[in-house]
């Protein structure tokens, strides 16, 4: 295996992991506050389309990225309202919202772009030129040859870690998912925090979806997200909800995805479909290995109301 293959593998891993990391980081807030949000996939699909439309119409990638985040935030309002205010079953709500987003995005895409044989293309984020840094052997191409979304993702890793670990807001989120009644008695508005956490998760999922159409690819197709939202959920559990670990846990999946693409292009004796199934198989394996040993927030998936006794 030549060093250029390894470099290309590592670069690809980092690139592929970006959407998963972004979505998983958002779920740190959501899970810690006590909600299982299965609409991540749907939110990603929706914001992926919305940011793509924004980019196609305005040609401004920054604006499109913001639109991505905002549309994710807006879409997650529904999940927040259903599960926090109406206290409905989290699994059913999340699944329904993913279904809704799938249909809605597919519909909107056709209405906006019409029926085409080839999907429309935009100018997507290009790798940033870091000058001499890129020329450093090995490290250079791996770390300094990415587009904006990669560095944006790194920034969010640090921001998420900081908020969860060093601020009172982060402490409140953890309290709310661990023992909502105690948090309530200390004057913390439990449901408000849960609501906000879901919105934050939606914002991150929005960025994740946008990064798919604006950074990873330069187009939009119906099946683009392909389960990454659910993989993100497995990643955040695997990472025990710690932002830095999320980064590394997601790399595992990015690696699986990139590996199968590189192996496909080389032409190995393994059937293509098995390679394509690698990320999903990996997700199952990870869940099987880890779920028994991680400590979920005690009130995970349970709605809270003050007069519940």
């Amino acid at each position, binding site marked *: 295996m030549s060093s250029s293959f390894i470099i290309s593998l590592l670069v690809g891993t980092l690139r592929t992991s970006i959407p998963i990391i972004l979505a998983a980081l958002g779920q740190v807030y959501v899970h810690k506050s006590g909600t299982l949000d299965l609409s991540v996939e749907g939110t990603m699909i929706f914001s992926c389309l919305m940011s793509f439309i924004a980019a196609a119409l305005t040609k401004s990638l920054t604006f499109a990225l913001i639109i991505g985040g905002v549309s994710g935030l807006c879409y997650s309002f529904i999940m927040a309202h259903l599960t926090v205010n109406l206290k409905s079953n989290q699994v059913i709500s999340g699944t329904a919202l993913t279904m809704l987003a799938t249909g809605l995005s597919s519909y909107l895409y056709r209405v906006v772009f019409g029926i085409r044989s080839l999907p429309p293309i935009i100018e997507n984020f290009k790798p940033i030129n870091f000058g001499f840094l890129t020329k450093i052997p090995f490290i250079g191409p791996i770390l300094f040859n990415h587009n904006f979304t990669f560095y944006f993702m790194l920034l969010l890793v640090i921001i998420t870690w900081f908020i969860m670990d*060093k601020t009172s807001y982060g402490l409140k989120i953890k309290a709310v998912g661990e023992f909502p009644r105690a948090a309530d008695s200390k004057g913390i508005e439990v449901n408000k925090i849960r609501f906000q956490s879901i919105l934050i998760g939606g914002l991150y999922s929005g960025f994740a979806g946008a990064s798919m159409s604006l950074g990873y690819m330069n187009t939009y197709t119906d099946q683009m997200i392909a389960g990454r939202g659910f993989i993100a959920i497995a990643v955040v559990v695997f990472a025990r909800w710690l932002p830095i670990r999320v980064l590394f846990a997601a790399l595992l999946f990015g690696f699986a995805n990139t590996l199968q693409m590189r192996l496909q292009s080389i032409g190995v004796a393994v059937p293509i479909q098995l390679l394509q199934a690698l990320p999903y198989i990996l997700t199952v394996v990870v869940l099987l290995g880890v779920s028994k040993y991680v400590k979920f927030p005690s009130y995970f998936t349970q709605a809270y109301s003050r007069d519940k006794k």
Partner: protein
Amino acid sequence: MNAIEMRSITKRFGSLIANNNIDFTLKKQSIHALLGENGAGKTTLMNQLFGLSIADEGSILVEGKPFKLEHSPQDSMKKGISMVHQHFMLIKNMSVCENIMLANEDENFPLLNPKQTKERIIQLSKKYHLGVDPNSIIDHISVGQQQRVEILAALYKETKTLILDEPTAVLTPEEVEDLFLILKELKRNGKSIIIITHHLNEIMDIADEVSVLRNGDLIGSTPINEKTSTKELSRLMVGRDVNFNFKKEKTNSIEKVLEIKNLSYKKEHVKLLDNINFNIKKGEIFVIAGVDGNGQKELCETIVGLNKCENGSIFLNQKDITKTNVNHRIKNGISYIPQDRQKSGLVMNWSISDNLILKTYERSPISNKFFVSTKEAQNQATRMIKKFNIKSQDNNDRANQLSGGNQQKVILAREMDRGPALLIASHPTRGLDVGAMEYVRNQMLELRNKGGSVLLISADLEEVFQIADRIAVIFKGKLMGILQPNCGVAKIGRLMAGLDEEEINE
């Protein structure tokens, strides 16, 4: 000027009058006990002072100034009123420091300020002899220590009035003494304290004044001195001469219904049961006394069949059942009333009849080979409702529509209707009113007099001494001794605190 004055407080829940025109005055620098049995309205009254609920009528004065009825716990804390609840409001997997930072947003916004917080915690802990380490994780400290963390949290907020809800319920007699020392220290430092309790003897030790509530009414308030009689207070509390005088015939049975040998149980490397040995004879009420969380739950669940113990054996009527499953043990006469009736005793949103047949649905007459007969289930349910005097309008009422006492009766009916060989009852009277308590204890005695056996888990020493034939004490998963009821409270107390150990010769 008084610390707190509550005047003509009335609170209704639907047609139930929980507090009826109650006057309550807390003098400055005093300890005032609020006495009453379960359901009398004490916690309701204090919840309204603290802001967890809002009074319908009346007025409240804090240090002479009016305090509007509609206020939140935050408002109360700003006025210097704090409350330590029965179930501690502490996040188990966080440290003491983190828990306190959570409650003190002002100094921790937007960034957490652990350094400052820890300094102040250590300061307060020294001043009031609380012995609290700001870095310790709540899960790893004892219940008594957790209570002190709660008190420290209140002091951290510069509380002037401290309300304690049943503070001694979770403590050993030794820990109760420690608590009272702390309370006296607080009093010396100018704090005013309200203790909600139904334990008469403790009031005599610590309170300056007592107010008695019964069925939502204030029966009276009186200062505590040498002349105060517990008998009189008890009568005021219950409204009649409390005579838990249960007919107990002497039992001479030697036949063992249950035998536990060298039972040990570990979970996540923590030894929860440590070499337990005891037996229960036929026609006996065997009580295991001890503070919550010393292995009682694990012991019950092991005997019932939920846990597999790695060492030891269990014999039911001389047959080895150590390796058998729950179903087998149910069929062979073990019944279980779990401690947490809403979580493990009933399916709350199922009907009463479905709850009653939970353990008998598999057999005739309710089932034939494959099918469960709804009609037969209803017949059985109607019969049991009548037999055990469960108050409900309809068999198909859901369990969550019943009162606590009636819910317990449903569980009791289900577990006792089969005429079990061994009834395991874990804190069966907790949270019930006196009438229901008497009923449950009578049922257990009836079973015993008929030749059945009861393994009773209780933390209520009054109850223990009332009906036990023999008393065992459990501490940190070990049996500290098996004694006769005439051994006295002090002895039991020492065993409960792990300060003594008796040789167990069976």
